[in-house]
């Protein structure tokens, strides 16, 4: 198994911790993992992204140009990364924030209204977990229980009371993409 994922969005949307949680979950499942944040040219208040790689074998480069999957949370990131998804790859995007998604037809594309849903769930911070839930439903590279375990590590102790709502968010994401998958199934 080798999964190379890019996650990108505005700073503050939680893309980095999303990728990191996934990496930790992979570690819990004894996979080789690598997580590489973009620490670079992004400007203050600009976009953030990270590359997460999960693999059964030793990972060669932590920085790669083309991705198996992408989780995209804002328009600039969409513009930047859509072309770098491998043919046959998976693109999951936040569809309240992004109004011009990709035009590519050689990849699977799913729009998730995660921001709206987060508002519904009264916690804007869980947007990223909704997206992660959606992704994992389509690409079950790690188990949800591992994600929860990982969250325990990533979140400071004092936030552990938030674990249940994060779990709900993961499930909500899975639910939302399932609907999308059905509709895509029809469209294909």
């Amino acid at each position, binding site marked *: 198994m080798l999964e190379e994922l890019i996650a990108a969005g505005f700073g503050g949307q939680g893309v980095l911790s999303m990728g990191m949680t996934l990496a930790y979950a992979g570690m819990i499942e004894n996979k080789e993992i690598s*997580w590489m*944040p973009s*620490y670079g040219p992004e400007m203050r208040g600009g976009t953030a992204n990270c590359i997460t790689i999960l693999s059964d074998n*030793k990972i*060669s480069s*932590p*920085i790669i140009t083309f991705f198996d999957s992408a989780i995209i949370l804002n328009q600039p990131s969409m513009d930047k990364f859509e072309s770098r998804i491998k043919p046959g790859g998976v693109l999951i995007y936040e569809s309240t924030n992004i109004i011009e998604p990709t035009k590519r037809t050689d990849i699977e594309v799913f729009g998730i209204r995660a921001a709206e849903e987060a508002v519904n769930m009264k916690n804007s911070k869980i947007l990223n977990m909704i997206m992660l839930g959606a992704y994992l439903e389509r690409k079950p590279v790690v188990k949800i229980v591992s994600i929860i375990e990982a969250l325990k590590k990533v979140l400071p102790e004092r936030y552990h009371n938030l674990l249940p709502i994060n779990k709900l968010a993961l499930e909500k994401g899975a639910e939302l993409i399932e609907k999308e998958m059905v509709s895509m199934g029809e469209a294909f």
Partner: protein
Amino acid sequence: MKGNEALAEAAIQAGCDAYFGYPITPQSEVLEYLSLEMPKYGRIVLQAESEVASINMVYGAAGAGFRTMTSSSSPGFSLMQEGISYIAGAELPCLIVNVNRAGPGLGTIQPGQGDYFQSTKGGGHGDYRMIVLAPSSVQEMADFVFLGFDLADKYRNPVLILSDGAIGQMMEKVTFGKFKPNKVEKPWATAGKPDSRERNFITSLHIKPEEMEKHNFKLVEKYDLIRKDEVRFEEIDTEDAEYILVAYGLCARICHKAANLAREKGIKVGVLRPITLFPYPSKRLFELADKAKMMLTVELNSGQMVEDVMLAVNGKVPVEFYGRMGGMLPTPEEIVEKLENLIHKSHAV
């Protein structure tokens, strides 16, 4: 754990007594991590006013006999050159970390390997060498701290961990516990002169040429010993390789993938990854040149280590170079393509 954090944690476990540093991306996490953790162990962590001050604080503490380290990234590393030359001249053991970013000048904070010459041939004045370790994984960021401190103490010589922005920032699995801190007695340290011994002093000054030359020859001998005993490298699929990729650090990982890709295409490619950049695995390269048809050095610069490869091979086989710069990384595909072109060209000739 991030590479930088793994390195910082390893410093604590390796019994580092003191860390002096100044913030600079992409290595500030080392100082940040230690600022929180070192005081818990009663150790010293101090943010200096500059890299010039850091390296001289290291000089002081190392001279007093303590396990001491600093870290920085390229521009800050440049500012340390005078201090490093003094440390090497005075033969003080300490650990220096350069998380290389792309230059010259302010450059960018993306990973680079443009400091190879500066690190391996002495960016400071005068004849001196550091032992240079080049990690290519987060695990090695941690392991080389133990190794680095031990080598420093063994040879009374500064040891450099030459990493890069990517290895510093990435997260990977890392396990501790393999190594134990291995502290040694330092009877030469300036820790206060008891009645029972002569006074110690730390200096790199030898005003008489005769004495200075003697000192220089002593250093040369030490470096020769290091060349003999401390060469480290990793070989991947070199047994039957017709083409050898030579690369260190992050680049070596990319080359590994490139080698796999190439083998899928039927080209017999192996990788030699120098772990010590000084001492350089020249002997091994010279041997490999017997079987190989060509060597391709891949670096994140315009061609630096390739000179050491050429020096090692001494004309036996062609040594080629492929480099990306400015924080751009070569893809495995790119490397294979470059290799194919070179093979094609060499056949054409």
